[in-house]
């Protein structure tokens, strides 16, 4: 089975092979980048080819009977195995499609900022994507855990990329929290699950029904297991396990954009939703009366994180806290345990991804073009970078949940589910959080478009400040880019500190595309809704 080339396996092999080729092509940057783009394209094609199978009307009838795709027997009766289901499909599709755009963006960013160790960067990125694919298609908890840990390990070098003392410290926080939670809680939960049920597979209705029925597992113990899982999946950034995410912002922006707004954090919430649906089973949790605490913890996370975001002046940190809060939207939706709310969780995994990656892309292009990292430096920047800030506005609207953006769709489903389950708390949280979202995003947009840019002299100081905060960065950096974008870079440098334009074109193309997708998702969300509906069908007995 190891050499089986069916699509889910191929989706893991393609980025792995891509990583190898990228490593070999390290000496020829253009070939290396072409390989990255080619791999991303091939992966997207492969992932997309699985979709029709998942949307087939008799999918669930076949699901229970179909054997998983077994790679290898790691321990007696514990297999590394893959099995495709709608939730994983949504996740893989998002990660696969955004990797293409993100690669384009990375090329602009890494060259525009003359980052070092670019080959390592692209290799680790491809490896991280391979882990994401394995996670999305994991057929049992063991496989999920394997790829979850692989994802932590392969993203560590990306966070520590700059190698400065600050980067290393943040990377330590990153690794420390993610490994501690996964080893102490998640692994303990998985082994305990195996000890109680002898079954790690993802099944409709969960695996605990028999153990609960014959009394070998009591409801309170089930509750403890649930806690182990929810806090063990540190990537979901449920407070107080969220500190790694702001720390990870020290990474180059493409990493923050794809991994720490989409792939890694979504790996967390995806695992949370997956475990709730296929390991515990919503009905089991409801009948055992466990897990309702999660609604309140997630609600608290949403509000507290939004509140912290209000006071962050560093743009990427503000976005990071916004991510923490948005992730808990997904968790709160999953915790409501109704079919509609689980559908909302699935949709929000998709909807949040497009908006947030746009915001990070914008933050990265501001940094590349002007070296500004703080919100207070952004006065009037919308006039110099209209595309970037326009895209930023769309992303922000999506975070707030206003039409016509993706965020509106998922928020609609979430509020419907909250009405249906009669959780007033959830409705209050969503309303308050919408206000907070508006309060921390709208001032940025106002500043960018409606405030006059600072006079040249003070701009110089502001820029100088930005440099001083980033001592590793060579002052004459942009011209060091390898040729391709030499013109733009020269331009921004020659005109001195105040008069920069847009970032290199690959970045602008990438961020405009994601912004366009964010809007398009509002009008054409059929695919995502179809997949979510398919997921919902699987929940109804």
């Amino acid at each position, binding site marked *: 089975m190891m050499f089986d080339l069916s699509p889910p396996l191929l989706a893991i092999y393609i980025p792995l092979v891509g990583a190898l080729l990228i490593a070999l092509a390290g000496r020829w940057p253009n070939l290396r980048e072409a390989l990255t783009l080619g791999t991303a394209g091939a992966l997207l094609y492969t992932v997309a080819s699985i979709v029709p199978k998942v949307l087939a009307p008799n999918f669930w009838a076949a699901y229970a009977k179909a054997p998983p795709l077994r790679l*290898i*027997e*790691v*321990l*007696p009766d*514990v297999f590394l195995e893959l099995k495709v289901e709608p939730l994983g499909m949504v996740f893989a599709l998002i990660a696969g499609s955004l990797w293409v755009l993100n690669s384009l963006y990375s090329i602009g960013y890494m060259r525009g900022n003359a980052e070092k160790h670019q080959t390592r960067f692209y290799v680790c990125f491809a490896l991280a994507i391979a882990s994401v694919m394995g996670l999305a298609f994991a057929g049992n908890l*063991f496989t999920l*855990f*394997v790829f979850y*840990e*692989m994802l932590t*390990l392969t993203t560590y*070098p990306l966070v*520590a990329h700059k*190698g400065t003392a600050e*980067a*290393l410290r943040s*990377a*330590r926080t990153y*690794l*420390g929290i993610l*490994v*501690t939670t996964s*080893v*102490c809680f998640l*692994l*303990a939960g998985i*082994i*305990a699950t*195996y*000890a109680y049920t002898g079954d790690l597979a993802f099944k409709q209705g969960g695996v605990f029904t028999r153990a609960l029925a014959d009394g070998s597992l009591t409801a309170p113990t089930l509750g403890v297991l649930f806690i182990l899982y929810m806090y063990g999946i540190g990537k979901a950034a449920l407070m107080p396990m969220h500190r790694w995410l702001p720390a990870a912002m020290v990474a180059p922006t493409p990493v923050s954009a794809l991994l720490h707004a989409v792939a890694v954090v979504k790996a967390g919430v995806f695992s949370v939703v997956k475990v709730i649906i296929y390991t515990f089973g919503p009905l089991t949790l409801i009948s055992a009366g466990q897990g309702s605490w999660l609604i309140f913890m997630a609600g608290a996370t949403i509000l507290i994180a939004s509140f912290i975001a209000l006071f962050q002046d560093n743009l990427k940190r503000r976005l990071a806290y916004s991510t923490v809060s948005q992730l808990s939207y997904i968790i709160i939706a999953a915790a409501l345990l109704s079919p509609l709310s689980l559908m909302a969780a699935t949709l929000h995994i998709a909807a949040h991804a497009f908006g947030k990656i746009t915001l990070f892309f914008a933050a990265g292009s501001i940094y590349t073009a002007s070296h500004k990292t703080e919100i207070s430096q952004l006065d009037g920047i919308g006039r110099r970078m209209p595309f970037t800030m326009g895209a930023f506005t769309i992303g922000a609207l999506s975070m707030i949940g206003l039409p016509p953006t993706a965020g509106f769709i998922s928020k609609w489903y979430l509020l419907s589910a909250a009405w249906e389950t009669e959780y007033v708390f959830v409705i209050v949280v969503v309303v308050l959080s919408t206000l907070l979202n508006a309060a921390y995003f709208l001032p940025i947009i106002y500043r960018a478009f409606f405030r006059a840019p600072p006079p040249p002299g003070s701009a110089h100081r502001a820029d100088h400040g930005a440099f001083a905060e980033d001592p590793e960065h060579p002052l004459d950096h942009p011209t060091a880019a390898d040729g391709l974008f030499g013109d733009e870079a020269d331009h921004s440098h020659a005109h001195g500190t105040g008069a920069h334009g847009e970032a290199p074109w690959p970045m602008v193309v990438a961020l405009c595309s994601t912004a366009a997708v964010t809007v398009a998702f509002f009008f054409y969300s059929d695919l995502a809704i179809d997949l979510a509906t398919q997921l919902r069908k699987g929940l109804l007995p």
Partner: protein
Amino acid sequence: MLDVQAHLPVLIVTIPLICGVLTIATGKGWKPWAWATAVTGTVFYLTILLMQQVLASATGVVSYELGNWPRQWGIEYRVDALNAFILLIVAGVGFVTTVYAKKSVEKEIPADRHNFFYAVWVLALCGLLGITVTGDAFNVYVLLEISSLTVYALIAMGKDMHRGALTASLRYLILGSVGASFILLGIGYLMMITGTLNMQDMHERLMSVPGILESRTVLVAFAFLLVGLSMKMALFPLHMWLPRAYTYAPSAVSALLAATATKVGVYMAFRFLFTIFGVSFSFIAMPTTLVLATCASVGIIVTGVTAIRQTNLKRMLAYSSVGQLGYIVLGFSLANVNGVAGSVAHILNHALMKGGMFMALGAIVYSQGRCDIRSVRGLGRKMPLTMAAFTVGGLGLVGFPLTAGFISKWYLVQGCLERPHMWPLAGVVLIGSLLAVVYTWRVVEAAYFQEPDDDRPIAEAPLLMLIPMWLMIGASIFFGINATFTGKIAVTAARSLLGVGP
């Protein structure tokens, strides 16, 4: 024509015993090394044959009576799945480290002593293999002395006869002798009361004679053996000899000892606690579980924290070894199938990982003459293969999935969860792996993300070091991805030790 198959158990001991002494006569240069490699290679091959024999036999036991003396009078060599497995590990690791030793020994030991070094080296392996193969309690002691005395000598040969190596060796000599005397006293008392030295017979007498288990002689024997064995296994807090010994010993010796010596100590504990005294006495009548599990848990945490604070990487790994030994002891102290299986599996897994990591440090010593945390800065680029081996080994110690360490942890945690009210021990196992993250990650960070102090060109280690190193590390990955073999052997061994049907 001698029938090799029929005499396997004894050949495994006699070949290195005789050939080890002959090593002195092999002369200078590469010859002692080539001879030692040939001898250890042969022994490794024989242990593979023996393993096949055990797996093929109907009873799962191969018994060999020396000189055809019945076992009541003579010495019986007795091999089942457990010791065939340990023999395979000791001989396999012994062979691979012998191959590795060439370059390292050339650098660290004066050329005129190479023949002595390899002679002692092969004899040490002979002792370790002998302890594992024999079914006779006194024979265990004799071979224990052979291995101990040779190991003292090996440690004392540390770099340039470094003064640290001599005191480390002396310290080990004193503590090791105390431990060995305790074991001897224990065996003596046991013989006094049972009238036999054969392990099987001892067990039968202890079980059959009424009231014998309550006698003070048996209790004292048990106590002496437990303390003596704990010393040999380097169980916290009786581990004080180990960190210095591993730090100052020649690099190849550190790799060999870390992978085999304490493991054989654990094997002795298996035999005495499970085979001779039996589970019902050792773990139900006596509070052994409480004592061993407490020592092991405290040991895991304390040595983990100590390892984090070390700047000398060999010393760091030495402390880590004591901690990892804690896992092994913790596992079998639970006296249930998963716990003991985890313990048996970890003997293999830890031998591969730690052996490979010590080899990587040996390569760093080879190229730089030292191996502290400063000397690995930026080494990720200069010695990529060596540092990659160290990193992968470190991930194994942490117990990342798809490394061998994960397999051990899987069984251990299950074992802890199965014992009622013992679940906090599962927490200790998991917290121990977090400490391992911290101490390995210091090295990873320094090697890959920090700039070296100076720009001296440093060459990658020679192939003769890299190949054995990667054999060990590669095997640790292999047994992490496909642990069905380890898992089956470990569970079989655990079931037979615990006396539960298959």
